[in-house]
Every structure is written in structure tokens, then in C-alpha cells.
């Protein structure tokens, strides 16, 4: 008998705030976190805007009780903050944590540190190689976060670009459903990095100004950073612990576009297939709100809109892109938006797409422009990544 998968804890840090409450406040009060960066060392600081977390690495370390002299990747620091909150909200004991699985999604890993030291390496000058590069790989961030929170269960790191943390939540869900795990912390983290900034810039898909997802005149995305984790649990475990339930993961799907390395197919085939898979597993529920991937690029918003139209035909649910608030948080996006989807369910509210002046005319329904009170039972969240990796999660009250 397949186990049901519940969410019993959540944690988040983003440009909107350090925890769930602060993020909810910003969302409800239309306070975007996109601005010129304070901490990212780049020549583009004055030219471009980002969804940067409003704390330096040292401030994060102090908040976490770590020595400021210790070299820790910003990706890991953000992950630690969010993972800590998710455990606190779930009420998991340190004993229970020992066997809890930890699923982390990231694309940047420790690149924020590697890139800072790369010039010194190339110039063959004196360098502390261990602190510069030993944390470079994605799995190292996972290991650091797992160590910090005291999780000793199996770890897993998924790196599928923009769908990474949607995929970790999906993976945790599949394992709990199959009876292979009882409790899992799943989500992801990514910090801003010069590498990623320059990469996206070379693809010419950045907007120098705050992004406008689903706007006819959208110019591209803003990069963001952050981390978020959900505590997922089997029904048996929730009942045993008497845990508070924030929602249920009822559907998920991953599909590959197999069209082009970076661009989505015009028909949005990958996105459509992912949404269909998720709907199928969820039992084709009525969707009250779609938290779209909606990066603000010409390509994504077009193909995602077409995919949504193909699936929902004339009955398009309310939809928006919260990337208009946070920027595109890459590997963390799936999890951050999962938290936003659950906030929507728990507060019966839907969040707007900011800065839409001339809405696109693909879909028969316009995106949401205001914070609207609305009965929200079921939310669909999309995360569509590079390499055509498309994922959809569906949560229910």
C-alpha cells in the first residue's frame, strides 16, 4: 500500500527574508527583493540587479554560530539556515534526525569560493588550496549542511540546474511513497556567483532591470539566491509523532524536453509532459493556482504558457511567477517556490506577478496582478531547467 507523503516542516531564506514568516510578509506586501547587489563582487554590480539575500557571509556565520574565520561556501551557509528552520518547524528530535534522509539540490555548490581564488591559482601564486577548492563540488555543500543539522541518514545531491530542488522533493516523495524512507529533508540551495552571472550574461538572457515575467516586453531574468527545505514524512510517521501537517505532496513529474541544450521547445513539450505526469500521479485534481517557472525570458514564458494552455485548455487556473519577487534562484528555485506554494495553501492567498504592464496574449487568462485572498486547496509548481530538465510538483491542503 503506497504511503501518503506529508509536509511537516519548512524553512527558507531568500531575498525576501530569513525565514518563512519574513518571506510571507514580503509576498503579501508586494515587496520585491530585487536590487543591486551588496555582497556579490562583480564588475556588473551597478549595472545589473539580483535577488540577493540581504546578509553577508559573516552575518550568516554569526547567525549559525560558526566562526567567521572558517571558510564556508555561501551555498552551504544559506542551506544551513533554511535546513535549520525546517527542522525547528517540524519538531524533529536529534534522535529522529540521525536516521532522517537529506536530499539537497544545487547547481553552484562551492563555486563562489573556487572562483574567488582561481586567478591566484592561474598565476601560480601562494594559495591555501584546501580552503579554496576542497569544497567546490556540489556534494560537499550537502555534506556540510548534513553535518551542521546533525542528519546522519543517507544523503543525496541532485544537480539538474533550475529543476534541482524540485527534483529532490520529488525524489524524497517517491522514496517515502515506496516505503523506503519515513522522514526526509528535501530542498535545495544556490548562492549568487560570478561564474553563473557571467554564464547567463553570455547567453544574453539577463534583464538589467527588475524582471517582468509574462509581460509582452520582458527582457530576461534576474539571478537570485537562497535556500529552502521541506520536511517530508510518511503518513505513519506523522501519526506516530503527532506532527503538524502543512500540506501533502500528491503529485510530481520529471520529463526531458530533448529539444536543445538551453532553449525550451516552442510547444513546451518537456513542461507539458512533466505537468501531465504530475497530474496523473495526483489523480487529476482541480488546480487552484500555478506557481509558474516564469523566469521572464522570451523563450521560457512563451513555451511554458503554451504548455499550460495545452494542458488546461480554456480552464486556466490562476497563475503567477514569484520570480518577480526573488529573481531566479536556480537550484533552489524548486524548493523556494514549493514553500511559496504551501504558504498559498496555508493562508488561502495567491501571490501576484509583479511589474506586468503589457500581459502576453498566449493564455486566455491574465496572470494575477494583486495579492488575492482565495480558497487554495491545490497548487502546481513548475521548475524548468537547462538541458531541458522539466519538473512539476503538486501540493494539496
Amino acid at each position, binding site marked *: 500500500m503506497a504511503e501518503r507523503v506529508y509536509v511537516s516542516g519548512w524553512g527558507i531564506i531568500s531575498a525576501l527574508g530569513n525565514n518563512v514568516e519574513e518571506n510571507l510578509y514580503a509576498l503579501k506586501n508586494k515587496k520585491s527583493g530585487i536590487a543591486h547587489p551588496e555582497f556579490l563582487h562583480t564588475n556588473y554590480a551597478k549595472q545589473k540587479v539580483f535577488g540577493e539575500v540581504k546578509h553577508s557571509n559573516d552575518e550568516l556565520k554569526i547567525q549559525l554560530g560558526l566562526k567567521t574565520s572558517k571558510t564556508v561556501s555561501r551555498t552551504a551557509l544559506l542551506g544551513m539556515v533554511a535546513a535549520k528552520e525546517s527542522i525547528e518547524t517540524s519538531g524533529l528530535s536529534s534522535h529522529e534526525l540521525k536516521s532522517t534522509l537529506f536530499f539537497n539540490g544545487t547547481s553552484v555548490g562551492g563555486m563562489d569560493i573556487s572562483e574567488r581564488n582561481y586567478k591566484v591559482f592561474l598565476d601560480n601564486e601562494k594559495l591555501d588550496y584546501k580552503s579554496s577548492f576542497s569544497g567546490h563540488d*556540489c556534494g560537499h555543500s550537502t555534506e556540510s549542511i548534513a553535518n551542521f543539522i546533525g542528519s546522519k541518514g543517507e544523503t543525496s545531491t541532485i544537480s*539538474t540546474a533550475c529543476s534541482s530542488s524540485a527534483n529532490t522533493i520529488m525524489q524524497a516523495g517517491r522514496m517515502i511513497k515506496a516505503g523506503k524512507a519515513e522522514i526526509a529533508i528535501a530542498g535545495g540551495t544556490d548562492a549568487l556567483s560570478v561564474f553563473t552571472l557571467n554564464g547567463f550574461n553570455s547567453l544574453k538572457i539577463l534583464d538589467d532591470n527588475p524582471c517582468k515575467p509574462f509581460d509582452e516586453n520582458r527582457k530576461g531574468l534576474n539571478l537570485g539566491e537562497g535556500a529552502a527545505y521541506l520536511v517530508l514524512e510518511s503518513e505513519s510517521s506523522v501519526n506516530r509523532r503527532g506532527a503538524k501537517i502543512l500540506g501533502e505532496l500528491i503529485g510530481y513529474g520529471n*520529463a526531458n524536453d530533448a529539444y536543445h541544450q538551453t532553449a525550451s521547445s516552442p510547444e513546451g513539450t518537456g513542461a507539458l509532459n512533466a505537468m501531465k505526469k504530475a497530474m496523473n500521479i495526483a489523480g487529476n485534481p482541480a488546480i487552484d493556482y500555478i506557481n509558474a517557472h516564469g523566469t521572464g525570458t522570451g523563450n521560457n514564458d512563451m513555451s511554458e504558457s503554451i504548455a499550460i494552455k495545452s494542458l488546461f485548455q480554456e480552464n486556466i487556473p490562476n497563475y503567477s511567477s514569484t520570480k518577480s519577487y526573488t529573481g531566479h534562484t536556480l537550484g533552489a528555485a524548486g524548493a523556494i517556490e514549493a514553500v511559496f506554494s504551501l504558504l498559498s495553501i496555508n493562508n488561502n492567498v495567491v501571490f501576484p506577478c509583479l511589474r506586468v504592464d503589457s500581459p502576453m496574449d498566449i493564455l486566455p487568462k491574465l496572470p494575477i496582478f494583486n495579492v488575492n485572498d482565495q480558497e487554495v486547496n491545490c497548487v502546481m509548481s513548475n521548475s524548468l531547467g537547462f538541458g531541458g530538465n522539466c519538473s512539476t510538483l503538486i501540493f494539496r491542503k
Partner: protein
Amino acid sequence: MRAYINATSAISPQSTFDVDNYIEELIPSEIDYLKAIEPNYRDFLDPKMARRMARIIKMGVATSNKCLESLAGNTPGAIILGTGLGCLQDTAKFLKDIVETEEGLLSPTAFIQSTHNTIAGQIALLIGCTSHNFTYANRGFSFENALGDALLHLEEGNDYVLVGGIDEVIPETNSILKKIGCTQGNNDKSKELPVLGEGAAMFLLSSNENEESLAVVEGVKTLFKPNNQDEVIESIFNLLIETEVDMNQVDGVLMGYNNSKKDDAIYDKLVTSIFEDKSIYQFKHISGEYFTANAFGCHIAAKMIANQKEYPEMLVKGNTTNIINYMLVYNHFNADYHSVTLLSKC
């Protein structure tokens, strides 16, 4: 969940891609680390498609293509890869470009190629596979995460899953890891550290046996940061219990000896205790050490079982086993990431 290995292919620092001349003799490496012996990719990759592909992607595509031949144009239900460090060549190139141009005018190709899931993405792109596509990048569990996921897919009802482990070395990584003290040069035997290697090992897994099936994956277990060696031993026995195989039935044990005194301690302990009467084999003298080396270990174990033979200098202790029915593959990375896999004869 039992799964059949219906095909496997590997590119490694020895001749493993060419199935007809599979490791006939060991070819010493001429450089500081064990570099993969690669095929002529032009033989099977359209230059138009391959022109952007970095080395690691070509390795992945080549070994995947070999595994997928038996599907005759059909696509697997999932493509799942594990890679510890991803596409280093393009990462290093893009980083260098950023430094040299001071964040100036940059060519996007290296950036696009640098993302970890590019390999699995390209494999899917080339065969038009729109199914589930995951990439794990989790240090010494990168391949094991992928394998566990693949078995779950089969359990969920997929017929075929393509799964593999892949990592590459570039001179920069070798240099950095030497300076950190994680590796030694290939010809320097003094420090008792592992030698870096690289490669791709792919598998086509299925819940259905066919006449080409090489071996069966009976089960896999992973153990993260065990407190002591006893926990490792317990994990091995737990796997045997779950797969209903007795220790007496295990013919050979393939272990991840890597020349490092510290790392090899656990292998030595097992050899003098629970594996005392077994034929003990090694594989990292062929593959070298890297995050997903265990993928190669499982690959060569499958070959040993399918062909009922061992390959050069693999036997470390004991006698060559007459018949390999069951083979355990036990490996760890840096004493933190332990995995044990049980393979059997079809």
C-alpha cells in the same frame, strides 16, 4: 529489487570500450594520473552533433549508445547519471575566460557545457528521449544515488533504465588535488595516496532478463559516515540478509583498494575477518580513484561474472575462483561514503 544488467559499457584508463579486446594486458599511463583510453568518436558521433561536446560528454554518449543498441531505437524509461565533479574541462575554461577578460566578452558554449546535467541532457537529446532525467552529484555516492534511483524506477514499473557513473580529470584538478594532499602522481609511490583516474561506466538495467544479460544486481546498500568498522561489517551482512544470500555463497569480493594506507585499512580488516576464505579482487589499479569509480567496479564485476574470468592483476588474495556465482563489490570514498553491491550470475 533485483535488476538485470542487460548491457554495460565503459571507457577507462585501460582498453575497456572495445569489447573484443577487453583489457588483454595493462597499458601503463605515461602521465601523472590515469587518463582514459578513448575511442575515435567520429566512428559513431555525427560531427555536427559532437562539435560542441566536451570530452566527458563524448565519453558518456559513447558508452550510453553502446548500452542502448539492444533497445533498437526505443528509449529507456529513465536516464540517471552520477558525477562527482561534472564537466571540469568547460568549467575550467569558462573560469579562465572570466579571469582573463575580467568579466568581459565571453563565449557561452563553455558555460552551457559546464552544468552537471549536460551529460544526461545530451544523451537524451541525441536519442530523443523525453523520459525522466536525473543527475546526482554527491561525492562518493553520486553513482550509488543514481543506481538506487534506477532500481526504484524499475520497481515503479519501468522496463528499462539507463544508469551510469562518470567523472573526468583535467591537469588543473590533478594539480590542485596534489597540492591539497589527496592524490599523488602516478609514478610517485612514496606518499601512499591514491592516484587519480577517470572514466564512464554505463548500464542498461531491466526487470527482464534476455539472452544478452550479463549479471544480476541483487541489491545495493550505502552507509554514510559509519562510526566504526563494525558498522560496515553489519551493513554487508544486512545486504546479504535482505537478498537472502548466505556469506558462504559469495565467491569473490571486489574491493576499492586505492594504494592509500588509510583508505585500505578497512579492506585489509575485512580480508582477515569476514572475507577470509574469499577470492579478493581490486579494480582501482585499472580505473584510478575518483568519486564515481565504483561504477567502474560494478561494471568490471559484471564482466567477470558474464565471462567467468578475471582481468590482469585483479586478484589480490586467495585463489582464482572457479565459478563466480555471487560477487560482492565493496568500496568507500574517503572513509565517509561506503557502498556494497551484490551481483550474481544470471
